[in-house]
């Protein structure tokens, strides 16, 4: 058995054992899907936008992935405070192996969470228009999961404790979601909002994922994939670098 695998496995075990956490983290996407999805549905239709659940569901699935992934990464703070991080950092293995194992584990957990939300969306009336493109949709889920776990790792590596947690939540995670075009169509918006949406990495995730599930993609799936791929590599590099600099 190797180091990357066992650390990845650890993340998965922890996820499946914390059942209250799984259910808890389903609450928010579910709330958005039901309250916002069904609440704005009629207005969206009247404005000529079509079926709102079809539009919203991809964004909600990625929202679940975003939250789970960032938190998986941030778990480093807990591991550090409860000492377990030390156990891995003094072992005769490279830091890169450790961060890779943790990130892959976190990303896998996030994808599983995304799948659960996808199933809920299907029950709520969402349908996949182009099943043939589903592997591409999976690729988008995977890239988003990896990218945001790496982001969480980067944050968790520089923070000493959980004091800054609300800050991360309100100034990083929530804006990433709200400015991603997950809730509303991007065209016809004020300039400032347009810019915010363009710099949000999740925008390209939502756009491409939506396209791959059979809805309209604004930038084109290929372009989305490329941008997302590049951003994922960059964030993985930053996350690994910051992790390698952790001092005990």
């Amino acid at each position: 058995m190797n180091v990357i695998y066992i650390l990845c496995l650890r993340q998965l075990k922890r996820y499946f054992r914390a059942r209250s956490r799984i259910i808890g983290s389903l609450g928010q996407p579910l709330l958005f899907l039901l309250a916002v999805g069904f609440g704005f549905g009629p207005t969206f239709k009247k404005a000529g936008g079509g079926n709102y659940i079809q539009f919203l569901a991809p964004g909600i699935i990625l929202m679940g992935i975003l939250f789970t992934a960032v938190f998986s990464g941030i778990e480093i703070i807990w591991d550090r405070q409860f000492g377990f991080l030390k156990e891995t950092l003094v072992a005769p293995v490279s830091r890169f192996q450790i961060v890779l194992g943790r990130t892959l584990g976190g990303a896998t957990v996030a994808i599983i969470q995304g799948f659960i939300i996808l199933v809920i969306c299907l029950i709520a009336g969402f349908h996949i228009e182009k099943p043939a493109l589903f592997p591409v949709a999976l690729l988008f889920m995977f890239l988003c999961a990896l990218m945001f776990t790496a982001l969480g790792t980067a944050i968790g590596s520089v923070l000493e404790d959980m004091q800054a947690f609300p800050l991360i939540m309100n100034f990083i995670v929530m804006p990433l979601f709200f400015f991603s075009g997950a809730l509303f169509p991007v065209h016809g918006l004020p300039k400032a909002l347009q810019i915010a949406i363009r710099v949000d990495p999740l925008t390209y995730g939502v756009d491409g994922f939506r396209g791959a599930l059979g809805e309209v993609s604004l930038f084109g799936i290929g372009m989305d994939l490329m941008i997302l791929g590049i951003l994922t590599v960059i964030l993985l590099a930053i996350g690994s670098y910051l992790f390698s600099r952790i001092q005990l």
Partner: protein
Amino acid sequence: MSEMIEVHDLVKKFGDFYAVDHVSFQVSAGEIFGFLGPNGAGKTTIIKMLTTILKPTSGSIRVDGHDPVRDQHQVRSSIGIVFQDPSLDGDMTALENLQLHGVLYGVSAEDRKDRTEKLLRLVQLWDRRKDFVKNFSGGMKRRLEIARALLHEPKIIFLDEPTLGLDPQTRNLIWNYIRTLNKDKNITVFFTTHYMEEADRVADEIAIIDQGKIVANGVPGALKELTHSESLEDAFILLTGYAIRAEEASTSDRMRTLGKVWGRR
């Protein structure tokens, strides 16, 4: 006897403050070496430098012939560490904690299985092997950490206040394992403690450190003779003075409180 740990003129500065101030000492292979000192004397800082966690400001260290700064991996493979603070994953079972450790240290699956059973029986946790570590008492966690530190058969084991906060029964038990291991497997033991009678009973050799400097070292008897005292505790007080040292709460202490409030682990 060959030297397992050699420290020469070691210095660690934090800003202008000398946490470790030109310290030299040796530990022979197979020896039980006790490192004593009041709070904030620099014990943990020295352990951190010996175990590759912290880089020294200057001076040289050899652990099993390797330099902890340059040959991190070699040093890490030949040592086992029990930290002052717990470092187990509470959300995993005792068995899983050991498995993970074994994989990290490259112990083969077969050896892992054999040794895990042997060690868990030794520290009397075999019956609890499938329980989550978060449900263990402080003493059980300590015993598990000692078993874990021995899983990869290190040549040296570092124990930073291994018996802190444990009842006399558990302390006795833990020192018995350590002495057994030291005799049977010839493992070199490097430990710190506040309990003087413990050090007196267990250690072959003792060094007393205060304000970053070694103030005395030798066999326990010699230290008592040096200060003309009855017990090691008296010798210790005579050597380090009566003043009580101030120590700030670390972030981990504060976090642990917060963690309890949040109901995690």
